[in-house]
């Protein structure tokens, strides 16, 4: 390609010589610039997390029923949430009309786990409890969003308005692809065993926003073709497809020789990649090569396409093959009612697979540079939504504090960061705003969040935006 000198290529070369962000922004780069070159921006310093698996629990898991132990609440059973705690804060319309806000203590059994001694729900998460010392716990996440779509958008993109690039797209943009056969950012939507209170999720959550479209998440499906249109039409065997792409590329090369448009060069490469994807995806999704002990580790559910266990195993297979960012969605954590009925199956879905994923990656020596993230889009209220008994209750959305965890990839295991009040209502120590969380993740991925930007609409757009945000050093190993 060196003998071909077009305007775009001149700029591309110049960009490499003079440093990426500087010249690109000076020139007001076009989106197609990156699409045509596939050169990632590159990290600012050596990344500790070279790959990420983000397990998003859609609906907002209840922090005080899982990881934020509040024993004092047992004495507060059915008593009114004090005004001194609520402080007139906004509620969703699902409970703002309630006459009372009686406290619902968790019905589950908590005990201290590991050497770090995190008090957690060991009744429903016995396997995960074995990993507490490898996990970095954050009990003081907070967000402004109070409903699912804006909250998920904020968690993924740093902004409640949809249309911004999500974390995975930033990772793909910044670090690029590590493989030639698969996309750099893959999305897996797991189907929970219980689907009573699912929330809608859509491709807007994994869009590339203003970043070039190639950085959008590619959703691998558990029904039908894993990637849309990956299968040849009936009656077209691989050999014929290969023959047709060879001919096609010869014709495209003739055009390239005449017009010297790098976009044509890209087209040729993309058709080759499409063909390689067609060849590699069946191997990727075929779990028959996994030995029995892997299914013992992840559980038998891992054999069923679409289960969370299957998704966890698939995540490992994806990052093993060089996929940069795997975004998993597991739905039905929106427990407005019947926490007692729903929480056990939700936890059963994820407990063993989360343990297995950490263990599996560790055994393969991949946990050190693979970051696992777990969490929802907000937390839940200590007061009940609807009827209350010792045995059952509901919980509304609560953005002011919730728990998330990270493991591997430079996150400090055994850390318990942040503290909430006795009601798990307000943060009393070490708050972590979503922006701080994003800044910290970017730090692990090798980026200074203040310099990691993309020129759009005349601004240097950043994942962490312009409001105050900081990397939290206590979370870093």
């Amino acid at each position, binding site marked *: 390609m060196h003998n071909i000198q077009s305007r775009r290529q001149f700029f591309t070369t110049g960009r490499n010589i003079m440093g990426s962000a500087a010249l690109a922004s000076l020139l007001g780069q076009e*989106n*197609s610039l990156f*699409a*045509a070159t596939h050169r990632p921006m590159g990290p600012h310093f050596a990344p500790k997390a070279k790959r990420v698996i983000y397990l998003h629990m859609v609906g907002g898991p209840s922090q005080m029923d899982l990881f934020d132990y509040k024993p004092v609440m047992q004495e507060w059973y059915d008593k009114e949430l004090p005004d001194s705690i609520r402080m007139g804060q906004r509620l969703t319309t699902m409970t703002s009309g309630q006459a009372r806000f009686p406290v619902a203590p968790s019905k589950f059994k908590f005990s201290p786990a590991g050497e770090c001694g995190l008090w957690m729900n060991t009744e429903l998460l016995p396997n995960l409890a074995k990993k507490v010392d490898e996990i970095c716990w954050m009990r003081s996440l907070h967000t402004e969003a109070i409903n699912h779509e804006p909250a998920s958008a904020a968690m993924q993109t740093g902004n409640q308005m*949809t*249309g911004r690039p999500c974390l995975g797209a930033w990772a793909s943009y910044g670090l690029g692809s590590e493989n030639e056969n698969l*996309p750099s950012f893959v999305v897996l*939507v797991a189907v929970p065993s219980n*689907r009573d209170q*699912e929330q*809608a*999720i*859509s*491709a*807007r959550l994994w*869009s590339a926003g203003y970043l*070039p*479209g*190639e950085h959008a998440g*590619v959703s691998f*499906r558990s*029904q*039908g*073709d894993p*990637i*849309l*249109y*990956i*299968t*040849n*039409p*009936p*009656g*077209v*065997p691989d*050999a*014929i*497809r290969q*023959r*047709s792409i060879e*001919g*096609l590329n*010869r*014709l*495209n090369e*003739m*055009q390239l020789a005449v017009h010297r*448009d790098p*976009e*044509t060069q*890209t*087209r*040729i490469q*993309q*058709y080759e*990649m*499409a063909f390689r*994807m*067609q060849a590699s995806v069946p191997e990727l999704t075929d779990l028959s090569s996994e030995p029995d002990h892997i299914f013992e580790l992840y559980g038998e559910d891992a054999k069923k396409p679409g289960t969370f266990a299957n998704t966890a195993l698939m995540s490992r297979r994806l990052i093993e093959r060089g996929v940069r960012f795997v975004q998993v969605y597991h739905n039905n954590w929106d427990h407005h009612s019947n926490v007692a009925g729903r929480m056990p199956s939700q936890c059963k879905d994820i407990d063993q697979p989360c343990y297995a994923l950490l263990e599996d990656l560790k055994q393969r020596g991949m946990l050190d540079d693979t970051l696992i993230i777990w969490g929802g889009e907000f937390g839940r209220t200590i007061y009940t939504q609807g009827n209350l008994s010792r045995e059952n209750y509901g919980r509304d959305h609560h953005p002011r504090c919730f728990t998330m965890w990270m493991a591997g990839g430079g996150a400090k295991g055994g850390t318990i960061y942040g503290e909430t009040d006795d009601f798990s209502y307000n943060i009393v120590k070490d708050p972590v705003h979503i922006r701080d969380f994003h800044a910290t993740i970017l730090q692990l991925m090798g980026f200074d969040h203040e310099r990691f930007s993309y020129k759009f609409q005349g601004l240097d757009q950043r994942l962490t935006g312009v409001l105050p945000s900081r990397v939290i050093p206590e979370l870093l190993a």
Partner: protein
Amino acid sequence: MVRDTALSASGLLQDEMFGPGVKPYQPEAIWDVVGLPGGDTRNYVQSEGKDLYRRSLYTFWKRMAPPPNLEAFNAPSREVCTVRRERTNTPLQALVTLNDPQFVEAARNLAQLALQKGKSDPVATLDVIARRTLGRTLSDAEQAVLLDSQQAFAEHYAAHADDATALLAVGASAVDESISAASLAAWTMVCNQVLNLDELLNK
């Protein structure tokens, strides 16, 4: 545009205007995985007849799961106005224009039309295809590549009648029975190549 161009070249495009949205070919499990239980767009019921071939402008739009073959080409979400449509070039787009039944069927119809007009003469047939897609004639070198491909495809489909039948069965439109299945299948693959040319998709 990409879809409409293929439909237009193949002679399938319906230029009827106005009326409610239509539901052309769509892979399974697009709507039901995101649709709310009991929602009236939970199940996708594909249109029939000419509604499969109307301009993409008339394709029914479900916001949570837009038509995937348009989405692959960065169809705007329609939530806010779009000043500049993004231009990208991805392997997923290649998979759409190579494998989507809409495009495979268009390739077959273009092949039928070209074979009818070209009176089965390969060079004349290629000329019809080139004019209907690229709006120009082919150079000798280009012709040679396509005829070379055509020959390889023809050999395959002559030896594998099942493959030819399967390929021709893609899409709801009628197959021209007067053309031999092996020949039509081979020319369908040639048209599939032409419909995937950078010159057609990018210019």
